[in-house]
């Protein structure tokens, strides 16, 4: 888009206001993770105690561990399954593909609470028949189910952008379908796959509602234990945990950003030289 500097002032101002709005509560959380009392409103001095206590709070650590496990496993499975499904959908006749993609979109478009409630109904009615208990397994199934569509939706566009000549060339050179797929197609659609993986991971990490309905009674994700705390009092250890998470993600993003910017610079230099 073309830029006109006059409008940028307004744009910058708006951006600043929105960022203050977005980060104000987070700053409050971070600040009160260092508060020397259990209060979340009254400042009574600086302490690191909550960080120390965090590492001895079994409930929080355990639920954080479950959250991470579910996010990692479901993201990986969903990425593999979703990529295969997307490749299968690709070039399908328009009618059946349309129907399948519409069904695929249901978990994305539907309200989380309906996805959660409907899966809970399924699990609860199946559990007496198949003799299993709601727990990590059902939680994982639920997360995989709502993650796959995101992977498909991010892999599909990459498939459509494929340069057909590449595949053709590979086959002309005697590659089998599988070889050509692995050597030519996969590298081409990899950005889509990685993107899908990250979206799936994030979605799973941030989910509360679907987990709330499908996790049963044996385990709790971090969101669930925060929710049950929020009905009494959230202990400052949670603030400490979020601060750690926030700072580590922030650092990671900054590192990535610096590296990418450096690479860009190098690329530009190379272009100039070349």
């Amino acid at each position, binding site marked *: 888009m073309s830029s006109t500097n006059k409008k940028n002032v307004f744009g910058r101002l708006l951006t600043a206001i929105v960022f203050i709005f977005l980060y104000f509560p987070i700053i409050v959380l971070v600040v009160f993770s260092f508060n020397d009392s259990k*209060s979340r*409103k009254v400042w009574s001095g600086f302490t690191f105690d909550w960080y120390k206590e965090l590492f001895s709070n079994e*409930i929080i*650590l*355990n639920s*954080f*561990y479950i959250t*991470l*496990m579910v*996010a*990692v496993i479901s993201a990986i499975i969903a990425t593999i399954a979703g990529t295969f499904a997307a490749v299968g959908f690709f070039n399908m006749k328009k009618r059946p593909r349309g129907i399948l993609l519409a069904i695929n979109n249901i978990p994305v478009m539907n309200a989380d609470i309906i996805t959660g409630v409907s899966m*809970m109904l399924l*699990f*609860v009615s199946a*559990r007496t028949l198949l003799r299993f*208990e*709601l727990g990590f397994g*059902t939680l994982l199934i639920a997360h995989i189910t709502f993650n796959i569509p995101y992977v498909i939706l991010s892999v599909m566009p990459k498939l459509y952008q494929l340069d057909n000549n590449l595949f053709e060339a590979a086959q002309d050179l005697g590659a089998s379908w599988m070889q050509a797929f692995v050597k030519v197609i996969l590298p081409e659609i*990899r*950005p889509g796959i*990685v*993107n899908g*993986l*990250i979206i799936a*991971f994030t979605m799973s990490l941030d989910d509360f509602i679907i987990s709330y*309905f499908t996790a*049963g*009674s*044996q385990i*709790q994700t971090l969101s669930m234990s925060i929710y*049950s705390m929020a*009905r*009494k*009092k959230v202990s400052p250890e949670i603030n400490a945990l979020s601060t750690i998470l926030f700072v580590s993600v922030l650092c*990671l993003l900054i*590192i*990535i950003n610096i*590296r*990418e910017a450096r*690479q860009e610079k190098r690329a530009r230099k190379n272009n100039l030289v070349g």
Partner: protein
Amino acid sequence: MNFKRLVFAVLLSLALTFTLAGCQGGGKEVVHIYNWGEYIDESIFKEFEAQTGIKVVYQTYESNEVLYAKLKGGGANYDVIFPSDYMASRMISEGMLEKLNFDNMPNISKIDETYLNQAYDPDNEYTVPYMWGTVGIIYNPNMIEDEITSWGALFDEKYSGQILMFDNSRDAMGIALLYLGYSINTTDKAQLDEAYELLKSQSPLLQAYVMDQIFEKLEGGEAAIGPYYAGDYIVMLENNPDLLFCLPEEGSNVFIDCMCIPKGAKNKENAEAFINFMCETDIAIRNSIATGYSTPSKEAYEALPEEIKNNPIIYPGKDVLERCETFTNLPQDILDYYDTLWINLKS
């Protein structure tokens, strides 16, 4: 080079570390406890684990109705639950509880017999009493100058915006019925309608419907007045010694909360070991002191410090208890009617 991969690698390694950490706990005997929030001294779990080798997995709920829903339709599998009298009765009648094997629980002998064989479990087959208590009004005299003596204060426009109310149907309707002078176990729909209308007119005056959030709100002066359980008032005093408690003149609800084992519990023997442990005198004392509730254990009561024993809020006299009524289970059509009224009230 794709640095998104780096992000992922870091997260993966993080997860793996946690897996290794998590594996250490696998394969042990467990007992899944589902209790009211703020209703146990959590430090006793370590001792139970040390004594029996059984690991405690602990979760909390906020009302009897939520407990019922979770057991009925949430795919739950707990080993020990803590329903109140009327809910225990409902669960027994719906076949949701296991019969207890009292041979595994010799400590039941320590419980005062006045709390056994109650109407909700006449032959005392399913329940072991955990705590008892009353409901009253807790208020902050710095924000409310009058002395509160009646449930009417909760419906008083003077305190608009400062009032909290129970976020469960039985307790909320119970208060309205008491104020109107009816039985809290009435099955007369006209009386229930009247109570509903009263609650509906109260709704605009309320700051919020709460359960355990009331601790923070009353302690911190966020709200001025609200009804809650006497034991929790005792705990609130630790953080705000100004708060006052009133057991209204219209009478109130006296309740017994029980320990039960839900039907199909996976670890029934562990559950019985846990219940037995909870009845041990020193454990009962610690729980009673930590929660502020009144213990049904004879030995524990005897061993309590005098100031607790003689505290009329924790152990009210006969005259007060005579004004109080116990919730009983209601017939199915009235239960459904309660649900309807409750949903309508909140919508």
